[in-house]
């Protein structure tokens, strides 16, 4: 666990209850979580264990029912909608299972959008950052394309570009490879690993142990509670199969 830079993201006694169901269902039941600066944390668990709910509650997309969340020491739960949006815009990046994009903008404009929103007057700087990201993730040649004209892997890499364009403090990924085949998955995970190596904190929810093996630490959620965690250390290509075996064994013990 690379937690040398202190805590980036923290939750205390975090709960989330949905009152729209009858009876109300408590999906997160008091989660204490600390994600170190520069850490790659993976959240695993069976379907319905509350992984995605935890991710959306610590990222401020949803409002927790109880408890608190802080980012870089700042309490997020007390922020209003506009302030929280500003935090998401400038300090967070998101990657989803489906590559959600605005269908009426090109790939490049989709990536540019958060940067322009964050700093409308610094258009040139934003544009050169976008171009650099497109080059880096090898999708510069499809920048002017519409979102239906590119492959799933290219689209998910574009989603990573969009998540990084505002140079976020933490990147949230919800099953980023869930809709991809294995070669595209590897492409995306390589990209995420590279981003992590450069110091970006990542919180990723996944079902896939191969993807989870990329993380520094894996926590396991069952019925809305963190029941165990496993430190894996820094990932390297040479040790990947050993890490995966180790992780599989642990997950079997967890009943995964």
């Amino acid at each position, binding site marked *: 666990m690379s937690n040398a830079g202190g805590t980036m993201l923290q939750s205390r006694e975090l709960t989330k209850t949905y009152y729209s169901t009858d009876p109300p269902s408590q999906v997160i039941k008091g989660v204490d979580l600390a994600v170190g600066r520069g850490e790659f944390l993976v959240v695993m668990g069976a379907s319905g264990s509350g992984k995605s709910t935890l991710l*959306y509650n610590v990222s401020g*997309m949803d409002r927790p029912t109880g408890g608190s969340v802080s980012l870089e020491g700042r309490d997020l739960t007390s922020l209003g909608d506009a302030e929280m949006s500003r935090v*998401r*815009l400038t300090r967070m990046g998101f990657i989803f299972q489906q590559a959600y994009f605005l*269908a*009426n903008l090109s790939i490049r*404009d989709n990536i540019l959008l958060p940067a322009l929103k964050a700093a*409308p*007057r610094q258009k040139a700087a934003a544009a050169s950052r976008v171009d650099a990201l497109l080059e880096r993730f090898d999708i510069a040649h499809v920048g*002017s394309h519409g979102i239906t004209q590119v492959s799933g892997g290219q689209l998910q890499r574009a989603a990573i570009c969009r998540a990084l364009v505002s140079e976020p403090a933490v990147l949230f990924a919800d099953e980023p490879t869930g809709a991809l085949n294995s070669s595209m998955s590897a492409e995306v995970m390589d990209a995420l690993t590279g981003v992590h190596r450069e110091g970006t904190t990542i919180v990723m929810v996944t079902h896939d142990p191969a993807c989870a093996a990329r993380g520094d630490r894996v926590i396991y959620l069952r019925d809305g509670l963190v029941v165990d965690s496993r430190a894996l250390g820094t990932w390297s290509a040479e040790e990947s199969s050993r890490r995966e075996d180790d992780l599989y064994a642990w997950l079997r013990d967890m009943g995964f």
Partner: protein
Amino acid sequence: MRNSLKLRYAANDLRRNKGVNAALVVILVLSAFMMATGAMVMERLFGSVERLFAEARAPHFIQMHMGDYDPAELDRFAEEHPEVEEWLIEEMVGFDSAAIAWHRPATGESGDLSDSLIDNLFVSQNTEFDFLLDEAGAIPRPAPGEVYVPVAYQQEYGLQVGDELTVATESGPRDLEVQGFVRDAQMASSLSSSTRFLVAEEDRRDLEEAGGGVPEIIVEYRLTDVDAAADVQRAYESDDALSRDGQAVTYRLMLMIYVLSDGLVAIALVFASLVLIAIALLNLRFVIRGTLEDEVREIGAMKAIGLPHRTITGLYLPKYRVMTLLACVVGGALAVAATGLLTRGIQVNYIEAPVGAATVLAPVLALVLVYVIVIGICRGVLSGVRRIQVVSALVHGSVHDERQTARRTRRQARRVRRSSLTAYRGGNLGGRLLLTDLRAEAGQWVLIPLVFLLAAVMMVLPMNMLNTFESPRFVTYMGVPEVDVRADLRFIDDLDSARDDVLAEMEGDDRLTDVRTFADVTYEVDVTVDGEEVRDLLRVEVGDYSGDTIEFFRGERPGPGQIALSVLAADEYGVAVGDDLTIHRDGEPTTVAVSGVYQSITGGGYGAKLHGDAPTGAVGHVVYADAVDGVDADAVAAEYDERFADASVLPMPEYTRQTLSNLTGSFQSTAVLAGVFGLGVASVITVMFLELRLTRERTRMGLLSAIGFSTREIIAQVRVKTLLAAALGTVLGLVFAATAGESLVSMLLDLSGLGIVDLEFITNPVLVYAAYPAVLIGAGYLGAVLRTARLRRADKSAWLTGG
């Protein structure tokens, strides 16, 4: 078992999309209601007209005629045509509404019929057919001094048995006592240009001899077969020896005129229902396509396990069947209640028909039609299931096949090339995004401008009509100048000296200026109808037209030796500006040049203005005066009205209001109804559209939220899109109403023979161009505000995860 599954599926879906389904049901209920009401009103009207025709023994063919005729020739014609079963000549004398007043001796109340725009024909009861029937359906025969008044007047003026009716003739007023009220099979329509009063034969003859009225005849035929009417009409018209300078009408034409005039409400209802059905269908298409897109994977799975598309379609259709059926039942029930209200006028003018099979069948058929159209279209849209391909559906979650996908991709590529965020210069990024969206999704958003356009036209046209008819400037269309005070003198023995008294007083009054007087004089005019020279009677206002006068549609005011004619009179005589016209009075012919043509709805649209001194023996006099600056014209008019018992003195706006109160009354109700209806439909559709649209925009909103747009900004985008779409539709609606709408109304007025051929709306700009659009757009915006307010509390992740 299978049916219960389908119904369960339908019930679940109805529960899940409560808002959308409720709005759809509202629109469908309204469509069904209007269609059924239209059908029922029409059935009632047909039945009631037929019953009146049967009981009154209505003629099968009639020919009107003014002036001399040869009874022997008519006799010959009847004998030559065996299909003529019975025939008669009805002699009538016509008086202008302004020449008839009433008085109630018991209470001292009184009034006149001058605001009626109908010709009043005094007749005696026929002996063989074409009877005027009293309220009990009997055939009354009035004694001398008695009169039976048309039921329409009973309603309009609240006349009662025992009232006294005074007719102004050239030999002084004639008094008759109201004995009852009659229904008239020939002239029953509420839009009929004439109506018949029943008097004793000696009274009719006396009125004719007294002068001031127009003697006319109607030759009437009953035939062995109603269908022979057209042949008899042709034979009559090709017989040169017969008189025929008036209208000829057949039984079927009469029936059609009644249905078109009193059935106008029904026709309007059916038309409005069709517009609503069109809106409902646009919505249904939108909803069903959305459902197919939402459930494409399920559909793909069903196709994969081999279910035929008919079975899959069968799963979705019951919901629409249930909704449409419900709408038809509710709409039908409402229609029964509304028909009672809407047919009151019909029951007065005609004889209420008994309830029969047709009474039930008409609305049922109308509702079946609504059901069949709606379900047919649902089936059509649902047939899209057939085109869904298993692989596209299951793998890509797409309802489109490869060719469609390729086409969409090309279209999208073109679109994204055109819109670049780097090209935008500052401003609001959210605004930029919403414009890009609106452009790209114009096909879906078009529903809102379309509905608002229709709503705006629906609201503005009746309001413009009302405002035009209520405006003091409307006097232009009444053949009356724009002045401050108008004094009318009629129904008194010594008209000329009474006129002189008022005139002298007004001319000596320094509060009044520009006092002028005109005499109402009946002239005879030589006209050629079908190559035959006949003499027509024309009511002419004689006086000095050199001062301020009316507006002329063509030409200008009459000078010495000149006459101006109303549009209808000029049309009938076939004369234009510059032509000569020979007019006769007391056998003395005078040839005058036509100086101008004006639009007028008074006197049935027929009249003329002659420059010259008023002759003696006029039927009435009018004195106009303007108030000098700072003088209250209302007060002056009231003072004169009080002082001169023989004169009716009114401020001009009051005169207009009284004269047109019937027309403006109906425009007022129409304007209010149309306003409420337009606003209601526009807001219901807005809410429903947004309900659907927001479902489609969930992932977009979720994404914008994730990348840092606040909920307020996201909501603002939806609201502004709605506002822009509603505003576009409203503006287009206003433009349409001001251009094509005005021409359309002019055309309808021209066709109605009211005497107006070119109406320019006198609008209330603040109301029509500020208040109405603000309220309409505001209603749409309010719908958007109410619908989007809920978004604030939503968990944003649910927009992405579909939870």
